[in-house]
Each structure stands twice: as structure tokens, then as C-alpha cells.
């Protein structure tokens, strides 16, 4: 049996976003896991061009404390 997988389209290409702003934390958070890791391309469906930009944006945002490096779950 073949698994029918729907092909994901890059969300940035769909919305015609050319520049990913690292100051917009709400937009970035959508591409992070709960722990604050960057979601890989094969999961999120982002195209290579935008994934590179996204990675840069996330790393910048982390530097100036807009999004956390790690989210620790204190138990």
C-alpha cells in the first residue's frame, strides 16, 4: 500500500512573502517546535530558499531575545 501524502506548499511562497522579518515573533513561532527548535523542511514544507532565510531570521531573533534559545519545562 502506498501512503498518499499530500504535497505541502511553502507557506511563504503561497503568501508571496519575499523577506522574512525576524522582528515578527508571531510569524517565526509558527516554524518552531515547542522547545524552540526550527522545524525541518520536510515537515513544514518550506522551500529551500525560504528555509535558509527563515533560519537566519530565527537565529537573529534569538540573539536579541525576541524568541528563546530553549524553552525549558521546569518540572
Amino acid at each position, binding site marked *: 500500500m502506498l501512503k498518499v501524502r499530500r504535497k505541502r506548499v511553502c507557506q511563504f511562497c503561497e503568501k508571496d512573502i*519575499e*523577506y522574512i522579518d525576524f522582528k515578527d515573533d508571531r510569524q517565526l513561532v509558527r516554524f518552531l517546535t515547542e522547545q524552540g527548535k526550527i522545524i525541518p523542511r520536510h515537515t513544514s514544507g518550506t522551500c529551500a530558499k525560504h528555509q535558509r532565510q527563515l533560519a537566519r531570521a530565527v537565529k*537573529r531573533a*534569538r540573539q536579541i*531575545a*525576541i524568541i*528563546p534559545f530553549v524553552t525549558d519545562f521546569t518540572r
Partner: protein
Amino acid sequence: MAIYETIFILDSLMQTKEIDSAIERFSEILKSSGCKIRKEERWGKRRLAYEIQKKQYGFYGSIEFEGEGDVVRELENEYNFNDKVLRYLTYRYDKSKLKVMEKAKEDSPVKEEKPAVEKPVAAVVEKAEEPPAEKTENDAVETEEKSKE
């Protein structure tokens, strides 16, 4: 000449005057080394995503400028010297950002009347106080009792 933007986080406990003078100083450094300042922004006090020097809040500000790359070192020297600067980030606008900016420039003459971007102020909803309502009920009961008598 390239366009850069520098973002800095200042100690949020500083007086507004001190913040003003600090920002003035940064822009002065840029101007004295022959830079053109394009934009100066204050994002205001924001919560930090993680603690920096045991602080939870910081005052964000940014300056967009046009100049040579060697200015950045001078500016960052000042940042390092100033204890009130918690963090800074200076970066050069890449081609995709420049493209977007050019597009915006082309669009802007057409749309001269830009709607003022203002954040809607959250209205404070006051809850109706419960105690008076109870009192009135009690009064009503009392009056009823009195009428029975």
C-alpha cells in the same frame, strides 16, 4: 555604501532622559563617521525571551543607517563600553530586504494617503460589582417582609 540596521537593548530601569541621551550618542557616533541616518525607532519596553544579566525586561531601540562597514566596529565599541547596553545586533540588509524596500518605494507615491498605523488601545472592561446587587435583593426581601407585616 550599504544599508545597515542596528538594534540595541538598554536597561529598562533607565530614566527616559538617559535613554534619550544614549540614543543621541549612538547616532552622534554614526553621524561623525559620515553616515546617513535613515530611521530611528524606539520599540519601547519589552519582555525579554530569556534573562540577560538577571533582567527580564529591556528597552529596545533601533537605528537604520547608510554607510561603510568600518563604522560598525566603532559603534560596537561604544556598545561594549556602555554598561547599560544589554545586547546589540547590527546587520546589513540583504538583497531580499532591499527588494521589498524598493517595491514599497514604488508603491508609496501611488498611495500617498497612508492610514496611520496605530495599535488599538485595549479597552479596560470593568466588572460590575456584585455586593450592591445583593444588598438590593436583601432590601427587597426586607421590604416584602415589612409589607406582609
